[in-house]
């Protein structure tokens, strides 16, 4: 295996090790950010390590005291990890209203097992002038709070520099996704998700080097896809899809050629405009009109329709179908799935929907459904 890939997979498999090693080596703080829209560049510019909180996958125990079981697995595992002290190596936590469940879960975590620093940042859900100004103000306050935490000013130049580093990471990830479309099977689905995940953990400069090395090697390889049908994966916000579920898709004959997962193309979508004042540019990206974000307000005409967005992904990747991975009890995805399904089907694109539960132990039913779907679309 490519050494760069191996390193990224290792970081994804054991983020804690990387983070603790980084802290010890650099003597700097680590700030956790809730998915999906908080601008990590601000933390990066301070010299601290911004890390997107992940779902540990560990069975939920303590967390059940604080949240009902009919809330999404990410929110439950997040509270569980926090109150058990599993995230105690973080120096701080930043969150916003990803959705009403995530917001409440984070407040619960700050109450029951607060990290030394925690902050709610209000990213407006709409895209009006008032909303942009309010979001800018929130980011300015956030920046100030980080400066007070670390005792170090975050200058405009340092922020611009961070934005450039993050833009480079986005460019490299985009290049990797383009390569996967051209050379199907070059990377397994679980590997691609792990690569993006490792980007959420690592200091971006390091990750850029690894991505560069991986891309150089992959450019010289041939496509190795052996599946029967090309599919796009959709959904699964906030936390990474289970690798064993992704393996099932491929074991069933699916070739994952694209996605709109958060642990996927959504993470690196849209460069930040380096010609603008940095915080304004970060507001722009937070207010991005595409990819359509079902956790925000998609006023018609202001943001791209999710159904149309998926159709475009299918067309550019020449996929044969879409697999919706809905995290069980995810309110934003629950609401929008029927409309996106209708849009896809109207465009002649078959789709499969699966609700993935945090505690799913029996994968056999999923395998059956994947195999049936792949068989169906492969025969068209």
């Amino acid at each position, binding site marked *: 295996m490519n050494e760069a890939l191996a390193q990224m997979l290792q970081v994804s498999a054991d983020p804690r090790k990387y983070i603790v090693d980084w802290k010890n080596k650099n003597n700097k703080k680590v700030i956790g950010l809730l998915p999906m829209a908080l601008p990590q560049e601000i933390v990066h510019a301070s010299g601290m390590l911004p890390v997107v909180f992940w779902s540990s996958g560990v069975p939920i125990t303590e967390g059940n*005291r*604080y*949240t*009902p079981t*009919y*809330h999404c697995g990410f929110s439950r595992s997040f*509270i569980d990890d926090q109150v058990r002290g599993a995230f105690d190596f973080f120096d701080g936590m930043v969150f916003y*209203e990803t*959705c*009403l*469940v995530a917001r*409440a*879960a984070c*407040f*619960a975590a700050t*109450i029951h097992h607060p990290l030394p620093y925690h*902050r*709610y940042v*209000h990213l*407006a*859900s*709409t895209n*009006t*002038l*008032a*909303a942009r100004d*309010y979001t800018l*103000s929130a980011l300015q306050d956030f920046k100030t709070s980080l400066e007070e935490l670390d005792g170090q000013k975050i200058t405009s130049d340092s922020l611009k520099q961070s934005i450039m580093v993050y833009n480079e990471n986005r460019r490299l990830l985009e290049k990797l996704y383009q390569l996967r479309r051209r050379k199907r099977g070059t990377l397994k689905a679980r590997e691609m998700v792990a690569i993006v995940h490792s980007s959420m953990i690592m200091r971006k400069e390091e990750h850029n080097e690894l991505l560069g090395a991986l891309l150089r090697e992959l450019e010289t390889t041939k496509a190795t896809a052996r599946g029967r049908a090309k599919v796009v994966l959709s959904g699964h916000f906030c936390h990474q899809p289970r690798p064993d579920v992704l393996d099932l898709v491929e074991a069933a004959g699916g070739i994952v050629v694209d996605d709109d997962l958060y642990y996927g193309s959504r993470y690196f979508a849209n460069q930040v405009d380096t010609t603008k004042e940095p915080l304004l540019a970060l507001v722009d990206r937070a207010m991005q009109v595409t990819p359509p974000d*079902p*956790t925000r*307000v*998609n*006023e*018609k005409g202001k943001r791209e329709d999710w159904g149309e967005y998926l159709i475009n992904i299918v067309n550019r990747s020449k996929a044969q179908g879409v697999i919706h991975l*809905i995290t*069980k*009890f995810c*309110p*934003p995805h*629950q*609401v*929008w*799935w*029927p*409309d996106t*399904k*209708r849009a896809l089907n109207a465009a002649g694109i078959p789709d499969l929907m699966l*609700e993935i539960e945090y505690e799913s132990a029996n994968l056999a039913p999923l395998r059956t459904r994947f195999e049936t779907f792949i068989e169906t679309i492969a025969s068209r």
Partner: protein
Amino acid sequence: MSVATGIKVSSEEIEAKRARAGANIPATTVKMGKMVDSYWDEIRRAPQEGKKVAWQVGWPGTILTYAAGMPTLMHAAYAPYCTSRREEGPLLQLANEDYGFLPDTCSYIRLHGEVARLWETGQLEKIRPEYRMPKPDLVVCGRACTEHSTLAEVVARTFKVPLVVIDQHEGGEFTTEADFLRSAQYLARQIKEDVIPVIEQITGRPYDWAKLGEMIAFLKETALLRDQILELMKNRPSPCSMFDLGISIGSLITQIGRPETAAYYREFLAEMKERVANGIGVVPEERYRFYWDGYSTWSMLGAVMRTVAPRGGIPLIGRYLSAFWRFSELLDPNDPIYSMCYCMVKGSSHINQHTRAKAHIMDLIEGWKLDGLIMTSFVTCRMWNIGQNDFAEEAERRFGIPSLIFPCDMVDRAHINFANLETRLQAFMEMIDARRARFHA
């Protein structure tokens, strides 16, 4: 009986309602059904009268659009309207089968989304005539949660009408007055820059600011009257239950800022004062005063009252009541937009973020001398679920009173086990009795 509301109810109607509720419900509240009916009639007539119609989701209720002369369907009124008359079942089933919603999706969204879809796909015959409401010309939303705006989006997309959303910063983390002020200014700016211009565009005329000021004055009067009723509920026996106030929210939401709503609450207050003066309670022998958490569970109000009331139990007070125009002394008819926003920010931050909510609930327990907490944990509305265990632990620690957390839903009866509900409520009251015997022996 005073007819200040213009609505008459007979003694037979009152007694029939009381028999169904299993409690001595206030006579005034029997009028609410007719008041709400008049609200729906007004909306149904709107197209024939050449009026534009709005659908409103969330805060600030119907006041902004009504001031502009637009009859307005309020989502938090339509769902109870359907549910209290058992119309929601067929619609939710259709929402699952026709629209394709997953059954764990917010039941308010499923209900309204399906109604919109039936309209647009020419299947209105599947809705009984009295539940068919005019299509909106505009959808307005105050986004207290993600589901609010997605509900509004679903409706607006389906009907292909404009949508305007007010982003709300709930402010659970606010620590200074400056935080509240900034959030209120943000709300006010959005209303002035984003909502009012769209309303003017839809109606084709300048916004009637004088009308809004007048409505704010009536709203203030109404809310202050309601606050007095809440205070009277501290008496033992309490003259009414939280469900009586919950039902009365009907006009506070739908006919907000109208003289008839103020008149209703004046009558309600007068009746409550009379009851307190004469020691008349809403239940025959009051034994259990409950905190009730969650919205009014429209699908189970009657089941709850029929179980607890004959045993002397009352759902007395809850943070839900505080969701509607608390801090109404801040309302200013001369500065309607900003004062409305400031009032909202102060009120919502008080109840939604659970540290503040916990403090508020402990104050309610102490102030209203409560014996236990009954907390509904909604399966499809996850706004208030997190924190309820904390409230239970704190109530036990500070006051030695027990709690019951019951999974259910505000609308969807498929998520409610009524037999379980009855058993658990009975057992809960027996538990309180056992504790009393043990601690006071």
